[in-house]
């Protein structure tokens, strides 16, 4: 089952933290789970989104573009769910 926003959130966290290890710790998930989500996202896009060197993980050009849009998407989803919660609460 696709977990679009979990994958996006995992990717954005790696971009922010600059490291898969640190991102896994921040998200509270095993590194293997984080790695799986990143691989799934890259496979779906057919593009590498991150590359690594001794200084950490860095977004590719595609990764930078996805990061820019992804942040807005995740934020918009959060706002929508919060509004739905308020409506659900008002109608109880």
């Amino acid at each position, binding site marked *: *089952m*696709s*977990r*679009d*926003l*979990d994958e996006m*959130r995992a990717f954005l966290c790696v971009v922010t933290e600059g490291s898969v290890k640190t991102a896994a710790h921040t998200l509270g998930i095993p590194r293997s789970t984080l790695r799986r989500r990143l691989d799934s996202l890259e496979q*779906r*896009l*057919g*593009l*590498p989104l*991150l*590359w*690594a*060197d*001794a*200084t950490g993980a*860095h977004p*590719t*050009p*595609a990764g*930078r*573009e*996805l990061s820019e*849009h*992804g942040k*807005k*998407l995740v934020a*918009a*989803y959060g706002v*929508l*769910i919060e*509004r*739905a*919660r308020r*409506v*659900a*609460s*008002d*109608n*109880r």
Partner: protein
Amino acid sequence: MDLDRLKALITFAELRTVAATAGALQRSTTTVRRRIAELEAEVGGPLTVPCGRTLALTPAGELLVSEGRSLLAAHRTCLDRVRTNSTGVTGEFRLATQLGIPPDLAAGAIANHFRAFPGLRLKVFPVASPLEMLPDQADIAITMGPRPRSGQWLSAVLKRGPERVVASQGYLDRHGTPQDVEQLEEHLLMSWVPPGESPDLWPLRSGGTMEVRTSLASPDIVLVRRCMLMGMGLARVPDGLTISGIATGHVVPVLPDVIGRDVVVRVVVPDTDKMRGPFLRFVKSIRATAEEIDVA
């Protein structure tokens, strides 16, 4: 949080039955019900209510459907745009490599390149003098030798290794091992041709050079090493850049304290506004394998 849950609710709102929704999404009815239930748990309230023999949307459900459509469309557009604009740096890089540079070294230098520039095509061709190819016939060069003149070039050191005289153990068993430089005359001498240098001037560890008469000279280091391994004679090559065979005893250094020097393998581009940005990104991508960056 999962967009598939939103998709399930939106599709249900359009088709009005769980069975039709499951068919459209190619999932089981159990999966569809579970996804909607998970979304309800996330929202903290029902998203559908029984309405006769069907289900209708609650106000919260209607909000998620109406605004969720835009969200899903934005997600699809985002992915499509990333795929379409995926290259960042586009076009083609022409890479001229020094003839004889070990393939694993060149491959190591460009291994991360494709991850950094996935849309960039790389054409690689080995030549005797890579710097002479810049900028008209090549964009970037991997070369061996001294640092190019600053102000004209940007360069990064990929690797340093010893250049020395070596021979196969079998050759030395048959012909003896030279004990001093005068005894070199008794042997067949082979040498790579360093860029801009004579193969007949061999470097001395103490500084300066000594003149010899080589029977084989080639810019192709692999060829010269192969002839040495076949037992033809002594070879002067940048042996330390490869798995030389010294550790296994098949290849023996000759007069290592007298003859030789360090050779530097560099990545070089012309220092122009056009190349500076991509070069620095390329250098960053090979930083794990580069030993030092000497960009001004």
